[in-house]
């Protein structure tokens, strides 16, 4: 029997798998899973890519993994400080290959709501706001998001508010990986301990599942790499992810 694959590890590993050789890849504020994914890819994959982050880091070699994904320690070892105006301008002029962006709700077009649950003017919950989203999602070559909860509350038919449009290239949840196909999110694969049915039942929008199959299990390198990054298990605990 294979070792169980935690939802947290599933998210980080599958975010890392979106990273491609040679590309400029960015992780931002409030984004520990992508931060870990970028650091994991740097450790484990046998190709190089340009990792830049919201702390101004360019190819950093942080001496420890910070709790905050915007901690200045993420620029440690960097040979330049590529600060906020610089990485946003890089994105809007077409130089950002892969951008990880947060979301509270995602719809079938890959648009996001990070603004409010309920009416924006009379919110049930005021959310953080989109940060880079509205500018980066339409201008990055590819954008990828994640949700630590896979439910009809998070993957919705209709967003309460469109914070950012332009369409996610990929979405990772504890049980599924979606990619954009012909302008809509399509299921690429599901967690091997879940099922296509479970993903359908838990997803608020219709999606194409043609060719979808169980996600390939973590490689020993991916498992060990993530264990090394989260040796005390704090990130896993903080993320409060369950397979559900």
């Amino acid at each position, binding site marked *: 029997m294979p070792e169980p694959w935690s939802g947290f590890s599933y998210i980080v590993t599958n975010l890392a798998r979106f990273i491609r050789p040679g590309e400029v890849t960015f992780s931002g*504020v*409030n984004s*520990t899973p992508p931060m870990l994914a970028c650091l994991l890819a740097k450790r484990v994959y046998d190709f190089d890519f340009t990792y830049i982050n*919201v*702390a*101004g880091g360019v190819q950093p070699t942080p001496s420890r993994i910070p*709790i*905050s*994904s*915007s*901690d*200045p*320690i993420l*620029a440690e070892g960097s040979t330049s*400080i590529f*600060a*906020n*105006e610089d990485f*946003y301008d890089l*994105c*809007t*002029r077409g130089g950002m290959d892969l951008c990880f962006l947060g979301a509270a709700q995602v719809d079938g077009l890959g*648009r996001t709501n*990070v*603004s409010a649950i309920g009416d*924006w003017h009379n*919110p*049930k*919950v*005021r*959310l*953080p*706001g*989109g*940060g*880079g*989203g*509205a*500018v*980066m*999602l*339409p*201008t990055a070559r590819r954008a990828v998001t994640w949700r630590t909860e896979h439910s009809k509350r998070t993957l919705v038919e209709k967003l309460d*508010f*469109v*914070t*950012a*449009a*332009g369409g996610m290239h990929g979405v990772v949840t504890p049980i599924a990986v979606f990619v954009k196909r012909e302008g809509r999110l399509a299921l690429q694969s599901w967690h091997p301990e879940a099922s296509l049915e479970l993903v359908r039942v838990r997803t608020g929008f219709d999606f194409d599942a043609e060719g979808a199959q169980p996600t390939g299990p973590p490689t020993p390198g991916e498992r060990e790499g993530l264990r090394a990054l989260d040796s005390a298990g*704090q990130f896993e605990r*903080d993320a409060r992810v369950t397979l559900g």
Partner: protein
Amino acid sequence: MTLAEMVALVPDGASLALGGSFLHRGPFAFVRELIRQKKRGLEIVKQSPGYDIDILCRAGCVAKARAGIVAMEGNFGLAPWYRRAVEKKQIVLEEHACMTLTAGLRASAFGVPFQPVGGVHGSDLPALNKWAAVKDPYGSGEDVWVIPAIRPDFAVIHANEVNALGDARVYGTFNWDRIMTRAAKKVFIVAEKLESIASFQARPELTLVPGFMVQAFAVVPNGAWPGSCWPLYEVDYPAVEAYMDTTGSLDEHMAKAPELGIEALHA
């Protein structure tokens, strides 16, 4: 100048751009002094505020926030007092993307009434904020969103080092601080340390804010507490956790502030 004297220059209703991001290198001692001096009706301009706007909302100092993303960050999630203030309509929120807020600051810095920004297409934010789109007059057919100028009364920056002329240096990322200092009417610097003029002359390329643009500065070691100031100190997570504990009081938190010791020295 003492921190208290600097804060005394801020009138009720002022618009303040605050430097740093989330729990990192924010002018938090300055923010706490705003609370001690019972400022009211403030407008806070910051792409990614967190502790600063939360504690100001908790103390009832804020009338309006212009922000891109608001959270405590780290592993603390939403900013609870800010969230409540918005939900209860105690404050007005002008919701931005970080870069639309920056575009507004750029317009002020560049001396133009509006600034085009990439992206934004398809978002509900322009309708919310009544932003205008301008058709490219050079025939690309492209519609571009333009953001009106945002000109804060003050930019307040927490710097690593300042000298007697007011020149300020920051180590590590300067976040959005540079554009804030160019967009605001006045600039205040709170710094960890007073450094010699000679050290600035030796490496003038490192100066983020030239002193002639700075109205006032104060030296407040550990002034970014409970946040970090690279490379001097990290986030004080237990202190932030205690701040977040709704059974605790704001006074308890304020009583631990490092600037209290400094100000006592001046007294």
